[in-house]
């Protein structure tokens, strides 16, 4: 595929329209390019440090299609290796996680240390290996970049990736804000949820920052919450969940294109004192100040860290990441994240609000997944080729609005409405740029070879 085979699929006419050709969700060749140049060609989110706390703690996972071992070294030093034995390619480590000084390949018994260095070859003396065999480099192939920012671990298989903080850009502000919700940082709670859906991964990246769908898709959730509150009031009892409300007419709200594909939505929460962090609002305000407390506890924030992580801090708190399995299949990993050391009552509130909404066993997420699958089916209607992201285009503000200035970020663009869809322009401009550069780099390599 040439860059010109891609370009026409994004119709970017500022002030007029921004349309995407639906083949970007269904084309196998484009999916291959995405895997090579987005997932295996740049920074992606791996995990939270909760799961890698001590030296030599490891997890096994995938970067795109490539199996990797990610290991914690001393302090905040992380490293990673392709999880394939240098001998015959078997996965060296089969466990999901653990702590190990050495990895022994279960196939022929080659031994590596947790720095990926080959320590021993079975039969090295009587194996009849050619001269100099043991001087060759048979260490595990390293992942070029593994780095954490405030406990969020990212990695890149591309040696030429920019520094992590440059990639995170303006989104780093919101990672830092999240991490600072407790003076001791965040922890991921025990209890994981993995789910799949039959839709392209880009719908995951879109929907977590889609304010437009919320009241429609989650009608059953919000009506139920209202019903529950009403019944509790009638019985003079306590609403056991105190679901978070979303009200876009009487609140400040909006969204930002943060650059590099990162985008976010935010809105003030009417009943923010019902949130776990809101229950401690005054103490929080004392520690972090008025503005920071307002953003942390008073405002819902959903931030896409492109391409595979969304920080959810609103209905409850979730880290949602995903890995594309096929052009029409995505696997999603969801965990609840919480400030360390929060009071028991707040923790329970957070957990109940989390389970109520999130996860494929919750009462809201399955409705999202159903919409992704319905879109994927609709995209097979090849005669209906295009859709636009034009909602809000008429009031799009380039650069920072007053809320962005207050919080100290410089977004590419700002929108004054949570439900505006113009933030996707940033996502898809970045997508096109990344794939185009990837194709060009492939061609340079081919010509150089």
């Amino acid at each position: 595929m040439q860059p010109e085979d891609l370009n026409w699929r994004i119709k970017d006419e500022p002030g007029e329209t921004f349309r995407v050709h639906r083949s970007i969700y269904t084309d196998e060749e484009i999916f291959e390019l995405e895997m090579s140049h987005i997932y295996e060609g740049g920074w992606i989110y791996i995990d939270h440090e909760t799961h890698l706390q001590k030296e030599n703690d490891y997890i096994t996972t995938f970067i795109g299609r490539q199996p990797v071992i990610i290991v914690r070294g001393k302090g905040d030093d992380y490293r990673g290796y392709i999880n394939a034995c240098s001998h015959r390619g078997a996965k060296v480590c089969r466990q999901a996680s653990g702590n190990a000084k050495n990895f022994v390949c279960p196939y022929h018994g080659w031994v590596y240390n947790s720095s990926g260095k080959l320590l021993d070859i079975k039969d090295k003396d009587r194996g009849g290996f050619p001269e100099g065999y043991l001087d060759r480099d048979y260490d595990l192939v390293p992942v070029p970049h593994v780095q954490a920012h405030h406990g969020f671990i990212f990695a890149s298989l591309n040696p030429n990736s920019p520094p992590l903080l440059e990639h995170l850009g303006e989104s780093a502000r919101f990672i830092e804000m999240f991490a600072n919700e407790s003076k001791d940082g965040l922890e991921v709670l025990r209890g994981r949820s993995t789910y799949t859906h039959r839709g392209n991964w880009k719908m995951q990246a879109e929907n977590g920052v889609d304010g437009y769908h919320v009241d429609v898709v989650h009608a059953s959730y919000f009506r139920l919450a209202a019903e529950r509150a009403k019944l509790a009031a009638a019985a003079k009892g306590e609403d056991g969940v105190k679901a978070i409300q979303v009200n876009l007419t009487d609140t400040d709200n909006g969204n930002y294109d943060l650059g590099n594909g990162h985008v976010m939505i935010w809105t003030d929460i009417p009943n923010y004192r019902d949130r776990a962090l809101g229950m401690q609002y005054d103490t929080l305000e004392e520690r972090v100040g008025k503005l920071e407390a307002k953003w942390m506890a008073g405002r819902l924030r959903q931030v896409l860290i492109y391409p595979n992580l969304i920080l959810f801090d609103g209905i409850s708190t979730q880290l949602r990441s995903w890995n594309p399995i096929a052009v029409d299949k995505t696997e999603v990993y969801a965990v609840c994240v919480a400030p360390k050391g929060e009071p028991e009552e707040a923790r329970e509130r957070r957990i109940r609000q989390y389970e109520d909404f999130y996860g494929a066993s919750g009462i809201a997420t399955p409705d999202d997944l159903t919409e992704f699958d319905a879109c994927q089916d609709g995209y097979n209607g090849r005669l209906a080729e295009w859709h636009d992201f034009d909602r809000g285009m008429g009031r799009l503000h380039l650069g920072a609005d007053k809320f962005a200035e207050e919080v100290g970020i410089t977004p590419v663009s700002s929108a004054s409405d949570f439900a505006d869809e113009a933030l996707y322009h940033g996502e898809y401009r970045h997508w096109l740029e990344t794939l185009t550069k990837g194709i060009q780099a492939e061609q340079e390599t081919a010509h150089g070879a």
Partner: protein
Amino acid sequence: MALDAAQLKEAATELLLEEADTIDQRRWDDWLALFEEDATYYAPAWEGDDDLTSDPHQEISLIFCGNRERMWDRVWRIKSNLSSSLARMPRTCHLVTNIRVSDVSNSALKATANFRTETFKHEEKDSTAFFGRYLYDLKRTGDQLTIQNKKIIVYNDIIPRQMDIFNI
């Protein structure tokens, strides 16, 4: 006259199978009525291969209903016609087997069972299944048995699109 051991096992078996039938036949109010008002319904999440969470107040569960009202929430939503994931309500079939009874007292007993629930999803023209183990605390009131606690351990916990009270 109080039930003997065989009758008690028969009654417990009947209760478990009735519960499965109420769900598959979508008799939601009948399903709720099998539970005590302060019953818990708990499907713990896994943390690792052999590491199952056990404290719903400190850890995330797949589903945790701390009383029957929270179970009613799920029933309300199914009946509401407001959820697109339930717009074409899947057909389900619960197979409940290996039923055993233990810890019998005058007021309570425990029951365990294995389950497999087939879910036929119309949109996907396909079925998926969850399987695992049920652990019940049953309450005895005279000859009547009701469900005080139900714990559902789902062994295959990668969820294709939806897990709810009707398909585990």
